[in-house]
């Protein structure tokens, strides 16, 4: 499949069960399901505005287990922006992001110009293991942005994606297409198991 040059590719990484798919589905479809299904890899696309024109925002939802190092490398090398998700209920899930961040750093060389958002998901949960300030401290160390979200209660989800796009200084992107209504028109197309489009 030919690669579309005006695709803007966002890759979502994080340990198993932190809510990567839930975040992406909440953003793309506006829904939340309390199901429990591990992901291998899914890709979602939707149209956004970019530099007074339109382009396709492509979101790759990756697997939580590091079973495919080759696939991880490919996603990183093709990705424009990265969302690193942990769950505020699991210290270990924040630990799991460290090798992924190192991998992004190793492949991209310099991450300063690359939009990266560290995300503490499940902010609605009460059994917290990672304090907000710990997430912030990690983000400071990585010189990346930070946000806490809840896919369940729809807290900060759209903000997360808009903020990520804002971090890209080379393009001027917005989730709204030329000031028109957002929402329903962002028809998302679900491409399952086709990583060749990346």
């Amino acid at each position: 499949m030919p690669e579309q040059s005006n695709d803007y590719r966002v890759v979502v990484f994080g340990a198993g069960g932190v809510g990567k798919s839930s975040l992406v589905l909440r953003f793309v479809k506006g829904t939340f399901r309390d199901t429990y299904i591990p992901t291998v890899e899914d890709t979602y696309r939707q149209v956004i505005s970019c530099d007074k024109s339109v382009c396709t925002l492509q979101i790759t939802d990756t697997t939580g287990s590091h079973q495919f190092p080759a696939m991880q490398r490919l996603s990183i090398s093709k990705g424009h922006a990265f969302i690193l998700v942990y769950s505020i209920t699991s210290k270990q899930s924040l630990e799991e992001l460290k090798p992924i961040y190192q991998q992004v750093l190793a492949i991209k060389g310099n991450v300063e110009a690359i939009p990266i958002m560290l995300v503490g998901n499940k902010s609605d949960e009460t059994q917290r293991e990672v304090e907000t300030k710990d997430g912030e401290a990690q983000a400071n160390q990585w010189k990346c942005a930070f946000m806490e979200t809840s896919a369940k209660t729809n807290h900060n989800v759209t903000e997360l994606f808009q903020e990520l796009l804002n971090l890209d200084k080379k393009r001027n992107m917005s989730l709204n297409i030329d000031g028109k209504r957002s929402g329903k028109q962002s028809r998302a197309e679900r491409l399952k198991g086709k990583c060749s489009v990346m």
Partner: protein
Amino acid sequence: MHIDIKKRKSRSRSVIPGEGSPGSPRSTRSMERPLKAGWLKKQQRSLVKNWQQRYFVLRGSTLTYHKDDKETTVQGVIQLRFSKVNELPPNSDDPGKYLFEIIPRTNGDRERCPYVFMANSQSDMEEWVRTLRRVIGVPTSGVFGKSLVDTVTYEQRFGPHMVPILVQKCVEFIKEHGLNEEGIFRLPGQDNAVKQFRDAFDAGERPSFPSDTDVHTVASLLKLYLRELPEPVVPWIQYQDFLDCTNLLDFRSTEGWEKLERQIALLPKLNYNLLSYICRFLFEVQLNSQVNKMNVENLATVMGINLLKPQIEDPITVMKATPQIQKMMTVMIRQHEKLFPVSKDVIPSPPSNKSESQKNAPRSFVGWESAEVQDPKEIILTVLGKLLRKI
């Protein structure tokens, strides 16, 4: 992939020590081909701690170092027997140094001072440490990255086992502590604890897990073991045939089932045993899916790729195959009673064993290599099996 091939080559060399490569004249420097050779920086052991670039050659359990890769003059000899090898943690003030040490055997009560080395990269360092440890430790005690037949054959000395001891210990632990754990096999274990257990098993210890061990750590260890097998539980030569069955299983006909049963019958005995053992265990795990949320499909997603995978792990190939792998795994877990009946649980029996190892002989080069090693050991196994049955 490239690195894998290199590793296998060096492994195949260590299987036949002392044999020169065909076509090239045997070296006059030594009768034995090196197990590993390469450049490292060695820290001076005098008062001045300078780094010196040296060419290191490992033969048998002797490490020699030289000024150049021609090995013209031996500058030093380190005897590895009874010594210890340690990775040294990276220093945050001075990153980019990949250090390890060799502590020579102690002479009486006098502590010997360690040799400190610097490798070019983390992976280079890890490979040296692994190779050196392999030489120092009991030669056959490693578990991770070893072929299934080597491990099971070696472990027969600890009594009859259907599957590697590590697999059995992980499964028993999870049965006892993890069946009600949400996301078992999905959520990650503690990475450093996983590595510690791996090193312990590789060093020939067969530790029991303390009862407070995180079950996800044990589950991750089991997945890691399966992933690191030099050839997956479903051998490469049968990989495509297994996947092809999934399309046929869609129909109500018996064709797919028959084909799958034929493929399962073709599995080498030890691979059959391990696959059977794991499918049976995963079936038990999903019985609690109301609590652990891991139903058959979920377990198939996270476990399938560790058991069934293509020889070349190219991302696109893997992506395309994933739905089939997941489906095949789902079938094997759900139908384990039919596909892997308890009545077939036997330690390798003489006739089927013999014909199987012959059938498997002209495989990919890795399979061929293990098949070569396999034969004499399988004979021992067979004899052992017979004896055990008599008792």
